[in-house]
C-alpha cells in the first residue's frame, strides 16, 4: 500500500495525525503555513488535563482526558512536567460542589482525593490561606511546541514529509473527489500542486476556512481565550477552582512561570486576536483570589488564541457550553470524496483525535490497519531537527 495522505496544519492535531498515519504505513505530507505550533497549539494554557475540569459538566470529555493523560505519560515523558493538580474551594459556593465533584471524578475514572486544607497549604504555601477544601488530581503540564515536535519528529522518522511556511490556498478536484491541494511557499512565493489520495483538514480554528475552500461547511466556532504569565512560579501543582468551568479559574505552573487563564469569547478572524483589556483585569483579579500577590514578580507575557470548538445548535454566545470533545467529519456525507476534517478537542486529546481521523481514512480506503500510537514511544523533539 502506498496511499498518500496530505495533512493540513501542524498543530497538535495535525502532528498526531501525521504520526498515526506514518505508523500505519501511509505516505504522509504535512503542510503548515507557519512554524510548527504557530496556531492554537503553541499558545495554549499548557495543562495536561486530568479531566477534573470537565467531570461535572462534560463527562465524555473528562473520560477522554484521563485516558489520554495516562497514555501521554508513557509515550511522551520528555515534554511533560508531572506534579499533579489541586481543585480548591475559595468560598462556600465552591465548597457546595465538592461532593458532586468527587462523585463525578469517580464516575469518569479520574483518581481524585480530598486532602486536608492544612496539607494543601504545606504543599502550596502561596495559596490563599482561606481556602475551604482541596482535592488532588493527576493534572500535568506540557510544553506545547515540543509536544508537537515530538509527534512530527517520529512521523518524519517513519517517512513523513513536513512542509512548514507552506500555505494551502486551494483544493484540486477530480470531479467531486479531492485530488490534492494547491500550496504557496511563503519563502519563494511560488505556488504548486501536491496530489494526494486523501486530504485531512487539521487546521484548528481555521478548519472552517479550509473546508470552505473545498466547498463544504464545518461548524467550527473560533472561541478565543486570554492567558497571563508572570515572573514567578508560585505554585508547584496546577491550581484549579473547584466549581463549574468558568473564566480565570486555573493557574498552570511551568518552568519558572505561573500562567492564569482563561476567558472565552467568539472571534471572527483567528489570524490576529486583539486582547480585550477587561479580560486582563478579570484574570488578574481572579489570580489574586488564588494566589495573593500573583503579579509581584512582574507580568511576563499576555497572550490570546482561539479554540476550534465544534458548534452545535442552541449554545451560549460565549462558547462555554460547547462540548470540549472532538468531531471527525467525512465529507463524503456532504458530497465531497477524499476529504476529512478532524477538529474540536484539546491538546491533551490530540492522540485520540488522530486515532479517530486515521480510522476514518482507513475505512474510506477499505483498509484495516490497527492503530499503534498508544504503545509506541515518541522520539525526542530534537530529532525533528536531524
Amino acid at each position, binding site marked *: 500500500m502506498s496511499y498518500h495522505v496530505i495533512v493540513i496544519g501542524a498543530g497538535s492535531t495535525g502532528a498526531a495525525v501525521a504520526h498515526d498515519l506514518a505508523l500505519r504505513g501511509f505516505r504522509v505530507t504535512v503542510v503548515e503555513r507557519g512554524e510548527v*505550533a504557530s496556531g492554537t497549539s503553541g499558545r495554549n494554557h499548557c495543562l495536561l488535563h486530568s479531566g477534573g475540569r470537565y467531570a461535572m459538566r462534560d463527562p465524555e470529555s473528562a473520560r477522554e482526558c484521563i485516558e489520554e493523560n495516562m497514555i501521554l505519560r508513557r509515550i511522551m515523558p520528555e515534554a511533560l*512536567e*508531572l506534579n499533579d493538580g489541586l481543585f480548591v474551594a475559595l468560598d462556600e459556593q465552591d465548597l457546595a460542589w465538592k461532593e458532586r465533584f468527587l462523585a463525578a471524578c469517580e464516575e469518569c475514572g479520574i483518581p481524585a482525593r480530598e486532602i486536608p486544607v492544612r496539607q494543601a497549604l504545606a504543599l502550596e504555601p502561596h495559596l490563599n490561606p482561606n481556602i475551604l477544601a482541596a482535592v488532588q488530581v493527576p493534572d500535568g503540564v506540557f510544553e*506545547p511546541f515540543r509536544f508537537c515536535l515530538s509527534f512530527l519528529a517520529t512521523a518524519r522518522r517513519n517517512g513523513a514529509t513536513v512542509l512548514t511556511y507552506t500555505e494551502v490556498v486551494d483544493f484540486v478536484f477530480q470531479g467531486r473527489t479531492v485530488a490534492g491541494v494547491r500550496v504557496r511557499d511563503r519563502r519563494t512565493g511560488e505556488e504548486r500542486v501536491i496530489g494526494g489520495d486523501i486530504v485531512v483538514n487539521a487546521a484548528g480554528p481555521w478548519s472552517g476556512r479550509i473546508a470552505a475552500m473545498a466547498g463544504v461547511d464545518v461548524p467550527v466556532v473560533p472561541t478565543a481565550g486570554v492567558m497571563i504569565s508572570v515572573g514567578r512560579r508560585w505554585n508547584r501543582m496546577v491550581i484549579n477552582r473547584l466549581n463549574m468551568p468558568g473564566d480565570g479559574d486555573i493557574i498552570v505552573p511551568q518552568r519558572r512561570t505561573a500562567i492564569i487563564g482563561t476567558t472565552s469569547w467568539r472571534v471572527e478572524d483567528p*489570524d490576529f486576536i486583539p486582547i480585550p483589556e477587561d479580560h486582563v483585569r478579570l484574570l488578574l483579579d481572579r489570580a489574586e483570589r488564588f494566589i495573593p500577590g500573583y503579579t509581584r514578580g512582574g507580568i511576563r507575557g499576555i*497572550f490570546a488564541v482561539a479554540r476550534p470548538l465544534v458548534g452545535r445548535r442552541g449554545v451560549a454566545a460565549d462558547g462555554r457550553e460547547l462540548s470540549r470533545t472532538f468531531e471527525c467529519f467525512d465529507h463524503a456525507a456532504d458530497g465531497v470524496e477524499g476529504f476529512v476534517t478532524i477538529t474540536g478537542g484539546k491538546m491533551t486529546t490530540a492522540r485520540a483525535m488522530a486515532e479517530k481521523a486515521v480510522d476514518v481514512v482507513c475505512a474510506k480506503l477499505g483498509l484495516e490497519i490497527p492503530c499503534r500510537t498508544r504503545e509506541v514511544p515518541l522520539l525526542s523533539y*530534537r530529532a525533528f*531537527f*536531524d
Partner: protein
Amino acid sequence: MPTWQLRLLRGRPGGSPRLEIYRVELPAEAYLIDAVEKIWAEQDRSLLFRHACHHASCGACGVRVNGRERLMCITPLREFSPDRPIQVEPLRHFPWLGDLLVDVSPMMRRMAEVGFAIVRQDELTADRPLPEGIERITRFEDCIECGLCLSACPVMAADEAYLGPATLAAIERMLKEPRGGDTARLLTLADDPHGAWRCHSAMECTAVCPSNVDPASAIGRLRRRLIAERFRRWIGGGR
C-alpha cells in the same frame, strides 16, 4: 491607540536584505510579537518569523531588537517610543532562511549530542512536601533553546566549531544532574579547544539570556571542574 513603527529586515537568501518600515496600531500593553503578527495578518503574508508559545517557553521567537537579542513575546511595546522605529533583525550565527527566520537545527543538533534532558529536578519548590503519588518534583529546565546567547556571543562569530554558550551550559547542567548521561563523554566534549576553553568571558550570553541560565557562570564552573579533573588524573598517575 498609539501607532508603532517597526523597521523589519526583509529579504531572502541569495538577494540583498533591506530594512522596511511598517506602521501598526496597538495598545502599549501589547508585545513586539503582537506587532509582527499583526503586520503578517494585515499587511504582508510573506513575512517570515518564528513563534509559538507567546510566554518565553518555546524559545522560537528570538530576534535582534535595536541590535540586542530579545524574545519578541516578552518585549513590551511600552519600552519604545512611537516616534522612533523599532528595528527588528534575525539572530546572527545561524543559517538565514529569510526575513526574521533562521535555521536553529545546528543548535538543536548540538543539544542532542550533549543529550541535554529538558525535565529536571525542581529546586524552586523543593522545600515543600511531595504531593501524594509523585515520586520526584520535576520541572522543565531553564534553558528554552532560544539561541539568543549564540547570536550575542563574539566567539561564535570567529569560530564556527565553537560549542557555544547554551551547549556548554547544558553540559554543566548534565554534569550536575546526569539523568543517565555519560559524564566522562561530556567532560571530553567540553575539554576541547572549541569547547569550554574557547570562551573569553565576554559575558554577552548572560546579558541576553531571557531565562535565568547565566551561561557565562556555568562555563566558569565547567572550567573549574575540568581543571579539577585534570589534577585528579595527574595525582592518580596520568590515567
